């Protein structure tokens, strides 16, 4: 079945007339995904590559049966776009827009939780269910996608977009395929963190193991340790945590994603690895070990 995207998924793109929105549309149509319409305020009535554009989500939903929204709007418009989708009743939202003010991200995340919606991102590269479809630019052009992704039984979660691809590629090179791969977003506040997504993977029959790519900073990996201890995720979980060098060389400096910073002694990769290992995760010491560990776990 995969998670988040299945054969019944129909998508609306908010920000469809922008450069990134057009590119996402092209990539999604090129890969099994049913994008029925788009929204850009003030551009209702236009078409993008044959896909109709509406002024508002409500207006679009009057004409089309859509159950998911992809957000590709500018950063300062993202909060409004997500709230509009939630208010119109959509319950699966992928927000690719990054560099969103924290005050806005906090509102989006809270509202999504209140109404019980799944919000991926902000700052997500997208969601890919091989063979079923993708939301967002994840996987890139078809030739790259075909090399990296293949329908299979391994779930992939990463904050980083590039590493969502790279980890999926490692899974593929180990002779396996992916059920769903998710770029959860590198921003400090995201709608769905590792633990939330692992709960979805737990319920998915097709997923037999999950690879989690973690990073220094924040507490999202700590939530995973609690989840494992409470037996809320019981499948093999292979974990890699990046950023050990920062502990040694330059603590307090921000590297990589906005969420990646060791503050007041919190968020150290070594500590995350220790906690996850003691909670029962299979922790890869080196990135190149991931492939073998996944194969052994299945």
């Amino acid at each position: 079945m995969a998670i988040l995207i299945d054969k019944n998924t129909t998508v609306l793109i908010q920000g469809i007339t922008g450069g990134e929105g057009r590119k996402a549309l092209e990539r999604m149509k090129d890969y099994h995904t049913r994008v029925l319409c788009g929204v850009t305020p003030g551009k209702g009535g236009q078409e993008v590559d044959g896909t109709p554009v509406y002024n508002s989500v409500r207006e679009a939903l009057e004409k089309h049966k859509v159950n998911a929204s992809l957000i590709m709007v500018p950063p300062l418009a993202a909060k409004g776009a997500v709230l509009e989708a939630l208010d119109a009743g959509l319950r699966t939202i992928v927000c690719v827009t990054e560099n969103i003010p924290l005050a806005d991200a906090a509102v989006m995340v809270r509202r999504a939780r209140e109404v019980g919606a799944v919000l991926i991102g902000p700052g997500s590269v997208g969601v890919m269910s091989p063979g079923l479809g993708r939301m967002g630019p994840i996987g890139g052009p078809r030739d790259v996608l075909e090399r990296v992704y293949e329908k299979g039984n391994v779930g992939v979660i990463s904050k980083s977009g590039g590493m969502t691809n790279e980890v999926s590629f490692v899974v593929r090179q180990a002779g396996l395929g992916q059920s769903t791969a998710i770029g959860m977003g590198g921003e400090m506040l995201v709608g769905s963190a590792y633990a939330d997504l692992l709960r979805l993977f737990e319920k998915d029959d097709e997923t037999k193991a999950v690879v989690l790519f973690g990073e220094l900073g924040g507490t999202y990996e700590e939530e995973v340790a609690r989840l494992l201890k409470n037996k809320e995720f019981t499948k093999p979980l292979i974990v890699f945590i990046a950023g050990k060098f920062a502990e040694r060389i330059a603590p307090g400096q921000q590297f990589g994603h906005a969420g990646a910073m060791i503050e007041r002694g919190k968020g150290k990769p070594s500590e995350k690895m220790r906690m996850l290992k003691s909670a029962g995760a299979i922790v890869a010491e080196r990135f190149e070990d991931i492939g073998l560990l996944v194969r052994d776990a299945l």
Partner: protein
Amino acid sequence: MKLYEFEGKELLAKAGFAVPKAVLLENVQDAPFLPCVVKAQVLFGKRMKQGLVKVCKTQDEFSDAMTVLGKDVNGEKVEHLLVEELVNIKKEYYVSFCYDTETRGAVLLFSEEGGIDVEEIGTVKKVPLSELHLLKTEVNVLAQIKRLADVFVKSDCRLLEINPLAVDGTGTMIAVGAMVELDDAAQGRQKWQYPPRFAIRSERELEVKKANDVDHHGTVKYVELDGDIGVLAAGGGASLTCMDALVAAGGRPANFSEFSGNPTAEKVYTLARAVMTKPGVGGLWIVGAVANFSRVDVMMEGIIRALKEVNPKFPVVVRRAGPYEAEGLQMLRDAAKENGWDVEVHGSETGLTATAKVIVEKVKKWQS
């Protein structure tokens, strides 16, 4: 962006909060009033412990406190001194607002005991902003906290820390210490006019920062470290992974770098030149994950331009993959052949971190 204390207090004063009476000094002069507190304006915390905050009762003490002006402290130049009146503190609180991944929202950190070591004492309570009404403290303190929370959100702060929030002899609440960090992502709507600031370690860091700010097509980041292997890494997660692999392979990175989000060739060029021209660099490692939308040919255009300018004798090792991978990698192979550079090129057939030990060995050999 971190604000200097005087800027943070200006922000609070504008929002209607009481701050100590103060004068900002850029040049040596006599004490505007005595007694007073002289505070060096730097962006890092724990100033009291480093002797950067001094209480002065006499002109001699004041003259002594002024000697820090113009000095370098922890890589920062002290350009301003904030001279404040002494507040007669009857009671002090610790009040700090920030964002928190555990609750995934804004939180208040609060203690009935303010002071310099409050974070270590362990009396600090964490309360989500949406549950402020549940905080147990005096009514007037809670009212003040709610107003501060409003400023924190509306002014797009990442951090707003008042320590101490003091009550003086007349019962007035005064923000005696203030640390403010603004959320850069909100620049577009706040239109802040603060001059740029960061601890600049070199001209190269400054150049990359400038190139990055030219437009919003992708980002480039560059931070200098103490080693000898230049690193040109793509992607937020991959850059971290590759730094770890380099260190594990016995290499010493000369810098951290990251470029992502399909940056222009111009940006990649500036970053590549900075990485290669750092004195003492004995090798270059160009590395990144299988990109989703950053074009390999575009980044190679920028890198080749920098290589031509620097014309390196040191070894270069590459692992890059993604859109237009074959075209991009071929461009680099051709340029290397034409100019006689020592470049070893790998694509997606090689693992992300597998080339770490290759560059480490090559640099060792080249240096001996």
